[in-house]
């Protein structure tokens, strides 16, 4: 006879009704992210406000779901490094395809692309989730670390945002 077990089960579930609830009310309560959490990839500028990406396209080639597309172009003529470095004309990351693997960050020889901690990337249209160069640079902002190419050469281009004060070398600020 299984009736005693039925009543035991009913008593068990009844005891759970007033218990503490484990629901996390998401949009108000964010989940805790661990240290090296990988979120959306973005492009960064160096502390002088220069685009770090040189359109080498390594990230495009390494990207497993082929989410990145780089359209290479030239640096503006007035830049001191115009005939040394390339610069992406456009840099598109399809956030619908990105799997947040972090290979692009790992492969980048210029330390120009980084995974942020944003995990909530939503939109009403597919086009909204094709992040272009401007948007990626805006999301990335300036990264004040010591990996800094052409640190002592040239002046910042006239259209670049005001460069922050130089930090002492060797100090990594994330």
């Amino acid at each position, binding site marked *: 006879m299984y009736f005693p077990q039925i009543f035991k*089960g*009913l008593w068990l*579930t009844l005891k759970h*009704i007033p218990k*503490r*609830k*484990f*629901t996390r009310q998401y949009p108000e309560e964010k989940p805790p992210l661990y240290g090296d959490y990988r979120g959306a990839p973005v492009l960064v500028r160096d502390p002088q406000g220069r685009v770090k990406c040189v359109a080498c396209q390594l990230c495009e080639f390494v990207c497993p779901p082929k989410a990145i597309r780089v359209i290479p172009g030239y640096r503006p003529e007035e830049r001191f490094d115009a005939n040394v470095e390339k610069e992406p004309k456009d840099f598109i990351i399809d956030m619908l395809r990105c799997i947040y693997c972090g290979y692009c960050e790992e492969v980048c020889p210029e330390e120009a692309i980084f995974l942020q901690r944003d995990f909530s990337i939503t939109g009403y249209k597919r086009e909204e989730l094709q992040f272009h160069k401007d948007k990626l640079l805006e999301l990335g902002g300036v990264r004040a670390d010591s990996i800094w190419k052409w640190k002592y050469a040239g002046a910042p281009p006239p259209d670049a945002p005001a460069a922050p004060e130089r930090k002492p070398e060797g100090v990594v600020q994330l």
Partner: protein
Amino acid sequence: MITDIVIDLVKIACVLGVMLTIVAYTVLVERWVCAWIQDRIGPNRVGPWGLLQPLADFGKLVLKEDVLPRHVQKFYYTLAPALTMVPALLTIAVVPWGSQLPIAGRMIDCIIANIDVGILFIFAIASLGVYGIVLAGWASNSKYPFLGAVRSSAQMISYEVCLGLSVVPVFMQVGSLNLMKVVEYQAQHTWLILCQPISFFIFVTSAFAETNRLPFDFPEAEQELVAGYNTEYSSMKFGMFFMGEYSNMFVASALMATLFLGGWSLPFAPFNAPAQTLAIGLIQIGVFLAKTMLFLFLFIWVRWTLPRFRYDKLMALGWKIFIPLTIANIVLTGAVLVGLEVMKANL
């Protein structure tokens, strides 16, 4: 004459309005209770504490695209959801919601149809409910709905026998099939759950099977049959099945409250006699609804506790345990009643 018709129409409107509101909120309460049992919070986004959730669900169901698959028998496919819903709405007519309400010099019975065959009417109409499911399964012309329908017809026919036999002792004791009389008997004597515990237990279990609720939800059996008989249904047609299931639950709960928990009565004055004032009449309706909701909670609580039976165990339980038990119960009740008569005659 005209006033009687108007009074009846108002009664019907009130009963259906209250019933369908409770049915809609039962769905919400089911989601709450299920969440609490599983240590979750449950719906709390639509309105304060999620209280407007039924409205949102209803709006969603109405606005959804009504898919009519090409392979279905169109007429029966459309008829089936209505057939599930209608018996529940019809059977509530003979259940007394309260004793009586004195309004404007009239005594208004709180029952739509005070007929003497009460419970027979309920069984007759409720057994039509199986046609809704069988037609849905057959007309869908698809394997999972068909399997669900086959199972449900076997299950519902088997358990209708138990359901019918289990309440026979109640009526032997009361001496009437009229549900109003059953409640009045309980108001004067004692609640029948105390006199007929076996009857009560078998009736409750069979009602679970009749309303296709876990642990007997074979017609749906999500893990085995996708969604069972309503797999091919969408939009408001699905909504009708859903409402039908919960309406059946409501009627079953109302019946259990009426037959075994004394319906509108409470075992002390002035609630143990037909009401003489409006206030007491309304309180009695409240008592009836409270008892009904107690059973609705039981339905929900059991659903989120017990796993589904195995099909052969279900059949074995119905035919090999419940039916002999109900017959024994009838014989026992008869013997006790005769014994009491003899004792009375001899004293």
